């Protein structure tokens, strides 16, 4: 075989050409894959930062509410008890001194109770059902409306942050019901829907047109807050037919 007919040179050229195409292909795939990994990492960072921001907002809101509550308690409750104690200790009668001591003990109890609300450790110590019961009892005690808590499946294994977000969302829903719906009855149910914990908050108040409310930030904000903990927010309401809110929690 002559030099010109030798298959070695075309073999080398064809081989190099094919190898070059393959290398380009593999490098392109790896680069595209890496680019996607970077984009995904940026997206995750963004979600994480939004989550942290939401948590910070919620903590601020709870602290603000706590301070308002502490201020009110100091003025309306402890302040009054201290004035009463002062009057009792100012008296020369021994039984008044005794009543004064009892008042002091009560004041100490009240101050201890208040101090516990100043940090967020109570979130960890309380179960979600206990929190719901507290909230409903508080509403009932004001005589505003009847309340009921139905626990079909207890909600367990919530992290502190998740519980914090959920507590704030529930408080907001109950506040909205009291402020705007004027219901006769509020019912909260906890159950499991397809292995996902679910909280249903239902009132028989005046309801509202959900299409009009969708432009407002309240509902969007609640939905966003639920999304930060991997949950879902669903609201159904009609004028005159009350409101039903479903909070689906992550598994």
């Amino acid at each position, binding site marked *: 075989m002559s030099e010109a*007919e*030798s*298959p070695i*040179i*075309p*073999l080398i*050229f*064809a*081989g190099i050409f*094919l190898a070059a*195409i*393959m290398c380009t*292909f*593999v490098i392109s*795939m*790896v680069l*595209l*894959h890496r680019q*996607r*990994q970077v984009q*995904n990492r940026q997206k995750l960072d963004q979600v994480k930062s939004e989550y942290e921001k939401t948590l910070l907002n919620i903590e601020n809101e709870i602290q603000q509410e706590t301070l308002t509550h502490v201020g009110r308690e100091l003025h309306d409750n402890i302040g009054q008890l201290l004035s009463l104690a002062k009057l009792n200790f100012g008296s020369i009668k021994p039984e008044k001194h005794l009543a004064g001591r009892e008042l002091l003990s009560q004041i100490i109890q009240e101050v201890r109770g208040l101090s516990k609300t100043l940090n967020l450790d109570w979130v960890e110590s309380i179960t979600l059902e206990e929190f719901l019961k507290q909230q409903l009892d508080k509403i009932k005690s004001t005589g505003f409306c009847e309340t009921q808590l139905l626990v079909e499946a207890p909600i367990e294994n919530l992290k502190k942050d998740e519980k914090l977000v959920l507590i704030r969302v529930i408080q907001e829903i109950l506040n909205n019901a009291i402020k705007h719906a004027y219901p006769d009855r509020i019912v909260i149910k906890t159950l499991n829907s397809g292995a996902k914990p679910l909280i249903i908050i239902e009132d028989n108040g005046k309801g509202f047109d959900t299409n009009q409310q969708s432009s407002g930030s309240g509902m969007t904000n609640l939905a966003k807050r639920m999304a930060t903990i991997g949950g879902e927010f669903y609201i159904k309401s009609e004028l005159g037919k009350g409101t039903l809110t479903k909070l689906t929690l992550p598994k």
Partner: protein
Amino acid sequence: MSFSDAFLNWYNIVIDIILVLGIISFIKLPKNERANSHYWLPFLILVFTVFYESTGSFFLFSRELNAEINAFLGNTEHPKYTLWVYNIFNIYILTFLYLFLIRLYVTNRNRKIINGMMVFFFVAILFLNYSGVEKVYDSQPIIFFIGASFLIIASGSYFIMFITDDVYMDINPLRLFSFWQMTFILFNYATVFLFSISSKYLWQNYYSLYTSLTKINIILAIITLIIFLMTLAVSSLNWKYEKQPTNV
């Protein structure tokens, strides 16, 4: 053809060595990995490829038996042809095995498409053979075209999924064996495909290029087998590699 010409050529020797190493590597795999289709299917492809290549060589050597089989298939005109071995084992069965392999690595939606491809390919084989459009002992360009196209599309769909689906997000592709398997299957069939279209023209006008491309196809086929061997051997070699995601 003598026995040594048929069996003791460099291609047969190389693939036989790959087979022996493949069997040793497969035996050395832990029991649970041997039962995993990500390992036994590449092993099956490796064994099957060497088996049919040896079968082809055997029928080059055993002319009488080959002539009898050709006659049984209706070919009395060219009793030396061993194309029926290539058609049945390479074009039909190996295409199915590769499609099964690609099917393992893709998501449900693409899996359904590959299932459809396999059904269509099976029907096409039966129809084209029984209708006499293509004969099993002769060259079968239509069946080859359908099979190779499906393999190129299926392996292409793996790469599209690879850069779009979250399943492969945290994986380093260079350390993932399915990535290399698909790369070589895609390039192997793409070159065979292009080569088969242009082979007659190249053979008549550029014979040296024709022989070069034939060798390149053989080399690509060997590299594909080496990738399958590496898939089986890598855990015994203690190399760093990515395990195939199980949630595909």
